[in-house]
């Protein structure tokens, strides 16, 4: 997080935002991760980054909008975006009189991030869980807690291509092997639904540059495998069927949903295009909208995600466009569709100077055409097209009309890029360097070792490591860094089951330098055991110069490289790196810190059975780890 913020600050200082070749393009984890926050799978967001409401008493639509939107900038139109969303979901039932069914939306009662949910599972507060296209028993921090959490559920639904670790932990997971759990004593009822692959269903991907690309179904899914769209549509249909005729007001949110997607084919697959059209939005006459600027807050427009408005302009699936590179400019506006409004570089007003001409003739993207009195260029201007560069808004203007002709950062309330962020972030207005939760080194820049507002989840199974100022930290002296391999994908559900990928990287391994191998008697292609306060795993050893020791403040720090793809199921099997990771979350994004941690390594295979947990306990003792270790908010060296 600090890196991304620092990079943003740097690029702003260099004037590299909104210009060709500038910006920051993050290398994401998978093909539609951007889409998974746009139409969110995140607990605290509604589509288009509208915040999810909290369970505040007497918070109606207006109060919510007042508290969440900005007076100026495009977020000033939040009411339109939200009302249009509510109309998309509840259709005719959503009227001005009932706040457009704003009351139907679920409410947050705190942080329901995946990790806090796991904690809530372990405390018995969660009855059921859907695990869809994810494999937390391998891919989430603290794999053991993930499984213990699932073991405390009443029911669990898993949808995936194969019987991933998160579906079978109850009979062959590490806790069964060690005896910490017994299959017969686990009360969770586990349902497994085979899932269709992306070639077996239609839908969209949204990649890191905000581009939606449609994929068409090429073959029918085999056997009982079904798409997520099929699953959720029919799931909803069946629930509504069972609730039909109910007089209970609690059932109205489900019964009033617009749930009338057309289906086709032998398994009644819902039409994905129809869903996209709903996301795009319609006016009162049912005609597709072309831009979020057409959205209104009087209930006359419906739109499933305001930033996606325009993807179905003129009733044509814009995301499915595949115009060849030879037939269009290098910007390629006719390949797929990017939000918002097919603008390929956001804030591209910043590529032109206050007079509307490109800062550099060699980096021309959009510019003001005085004759046509509008912004033109290679990209669609991320700006009101007719607003001249010299425009000054009246004092009482609101929303986008409050932005001047040089306010390129149109989503910000003041239209400016923020080097210093006075609001909106939990930790601080400027990026700062903090050491990791489990770091073998003190913070060399500040007296504050760790981010003071990071989220820690103290617990018996989530012990943290001592601070480097404590002598016991030498028990876990090495830096472990986790990473990905090209040949495998995330938690392995999509790659470790395929022979052609499995043979490219056939075993879990760790990578160490020759110096570390010598220090710890590790042999190339031998076995190593890696230990932290959370768990112990084994891996084959690759000795390489690519993971060099670092020299910091006169001390050598050895690194251990760990790919994180393996788990005990599949064509290629191994221990999961996430057995070692603790849950410590970034305060803004609630993302786990697993890229680096501290730990120890020794030669040979790990212990089996009860001895496995005993080894971890031994390390906790030797390192002097208590329930308070590592949980300090403010700490010196």
């Amino acid at each position: 997080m600090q890196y991304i913020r620092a990079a943003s600050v740097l690029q702003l200082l260099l004037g590299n935002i909104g210009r060709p070749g500038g910006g920051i393009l993050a290398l994401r984890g998978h093909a539609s991760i951007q889409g998974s926050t746009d139409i969110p799978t995140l607990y605290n967001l509604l589509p288009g980054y509208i915040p999810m409401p909290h369970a505040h008493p007497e918070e109606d639509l207006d109060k919510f909008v007042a508290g969440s939107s900005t007076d100026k900038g495009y977020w000033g139109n939040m009411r339109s975006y939200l009302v249009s969303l509510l109309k998309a979901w509840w259709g005719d039932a959503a009227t001005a009189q009932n706040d457009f069914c704003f009351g139907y939306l679920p409410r947050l009662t705190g942080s329901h991030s995946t990790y806090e949910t796991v904690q809530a599972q372990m405390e018995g507060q969660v009855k059921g869980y859907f695990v869809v296209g994810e494999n937390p028993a391998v891919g989430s921090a603290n794999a053991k807690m993930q499984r213990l959490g699932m073991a405390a559920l009443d029911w669990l639904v898993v949808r995936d291509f194969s019987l991933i670790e998160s579906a079978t932990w109850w009979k062959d997971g590490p806790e069964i092997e060690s005896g910490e759990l017994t299959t017969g004593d686990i009360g969770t009822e586990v349902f497994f639904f085979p899932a269709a692959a992306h070639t077996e269903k239609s839908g969209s991907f949204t990649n890191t540059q905000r581009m939606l690309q449609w994929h068409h179904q090429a073959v029918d899914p085999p056997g009982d495998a079904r798409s997520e769209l099929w699953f959720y549509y029919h799931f909803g249909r069946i629930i509504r069927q069972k609730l039909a005729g109910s007089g209970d007001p609690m059932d109205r949110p489900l019964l009033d949903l617009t749930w009338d997607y057309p289906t086709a084919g032998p398994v009644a697959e819902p039409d994905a295009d129809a869903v996209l059209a709903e996301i795009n939005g319609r006016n009162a006459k049912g005609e597709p909208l072309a831009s979020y600027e057409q959205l209104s807050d009087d209930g006359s427009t419906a739109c499933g995600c305001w930033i996606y408005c325009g993807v179905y302009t003129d009733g044509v699936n814009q995301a499915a466009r595949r115009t060849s590179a030879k037939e269009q400019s290098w910007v390629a506006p006719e390949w797929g569709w990017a939000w918002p409004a097919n603008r390929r570089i956001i804030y591209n007003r910043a590529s032109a100077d206050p007079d509307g001409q490109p800062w550099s003739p060699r980096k021309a993207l959009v510019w003001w055409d005085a004759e046509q009195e509008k912004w033109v260029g290679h990209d669609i201007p991320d700006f009101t097209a007719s607003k001249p560069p010299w425009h000054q808004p009246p004092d009482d203007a609101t929303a986008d009309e409050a932005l001047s002709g040089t306010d390129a950062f149109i989503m910000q309330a003041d239209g400016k890029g923020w080097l210093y962020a006075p609001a909106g972030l939990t930790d601080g207005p400027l990026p700062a360097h903090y050491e990791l939760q489990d770091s073998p080194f003190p913070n060399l820049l500040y007296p504050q070792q760790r981010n003071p507002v990071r989220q820690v989840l103290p617990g018996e199974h989530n012990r943290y490591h001592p601070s480097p100022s404590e002598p016991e930290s030498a028990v876990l002296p090495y830096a472990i860094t986790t990473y990905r391999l090209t040949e495998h994908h995330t938690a392995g559900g999509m790659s470790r089951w395929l022979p052609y990928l499995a043979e490219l990287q056939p075993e879990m391994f760790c990578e160490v330098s020759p110096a570390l191998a010598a220090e710890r008697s590790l042999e190339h292609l031998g076995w190593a055991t890696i230990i932290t306060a959370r768990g112990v795993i084994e891996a084959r050893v690759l000795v390489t110069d690519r993971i060099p020791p670092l020299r910091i403040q006169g001390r050598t720090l050895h690194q251990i490289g760990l790919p994180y793809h393996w788990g005990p199921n599949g064509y290629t099997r191994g221990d999961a790196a996430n057995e070692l990771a603790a849950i410590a979350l970034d305060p803004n994004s609630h993302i786990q810190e697993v890229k680096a941690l501290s730990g120890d390594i020794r030669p040979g295979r790990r212990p089996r059975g009860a001895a496995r947990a005993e080894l971890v306990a031994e390390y906790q003792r030797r390192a002097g780890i208590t329930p308070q270790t590592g949980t300090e908010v403010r700490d010196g060296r």
Partner: protein
Amino acid sequence: MSGSDVTKAGLRDARPGREAAPSGTLERPRRRGRGEQPMVPDASFSSYYGKLVLNQPTWEARDIAGYLFLGGLAGAGSVIAAGAHLTRRPGLARALKCGAAAAGGLSLAALVHDLGRPLRFLNMLRTIKPTSPMSIGSWLLAGYMPAAAAAAASDLTGRMPRAAAAAAAAGPAVATYTAALIADTAVPAWHDGHRHLPFLFAASAVTAAAGLGLAAAPRAENEPVRRLGVAAGSAELIIESLMKHQMGMVAGAYEEGRAKQLGQAARALAVSGVLTAGLAGHRSRPAAAAAGAALLAASALTRFAIFDAGLNSAADPRYTVIPQRLRQRQRLANADGGAAGASHPGRAASSCSPAPY
């Protein structure tokens, strides 16, 4: 980083990126490698993780080395049989004609057995390809085998007395084409001996046939094969030695493992066979038989030794790469007229040492 200009008119001067600099300071290696060409191969040679460059022959020693021996025996046997026939040595002629036919039949069995798809052996005759010794050889054998069988049959039945001539005509080719066959591969121990191998195989084939004659023919008729055995056995030893000398470091493949043992045994048997045949082969039947057996065994073991040496040389990448490097350096040195410091656009590089950049 790749670069280009984005003007109002559009993209201009797109430039492909150069290789990104890796971590650490990359110093361009000094150009000494190009100026001075060491003539001695690197002492610290290693191939790509020591892996083989070539694929190992899939042939079974028993089948193919066995065939080399049997084919040589048959081909040379037919020629000598014709000679025996013409010089009225019926015992010798019969022994060699039957021996050639039997060896020919066993050859065929061995070859078919070694095929990955034995039932498709007739596909050998789908086409005739001058660039393939095996194709030529298949046609040779297709003509030779029936002729050898007919020669033996005619000797036994008295009919078709000219059948032996046909077998004899094909004999030399049958006996030596196998040398071209194994030399026309990338296997260093075979390919690098391609100038000597045909003569070696010829000598070895005559050694074997002479050995058979000595062992099976009446003493009164064995004078020609006694002399042939001495001459061919000696020639085999000399030519093999010449071949290995000319091969340079590749000859080391003949001095490893089973190839070394077989080679030593073959040479010992050849020497004893030559001596026994030369000194006592005309005097006593048992001595002749012993000499004959030794010469037969020598020829067989020679083939097996050569076969194993081939496998050794294919299994160790040194034998492929070092001679190549030496040849290339020689070529570069010749091209430069021996002058140091010439720049040549191409240069062989070890896969595991820093390459000139």
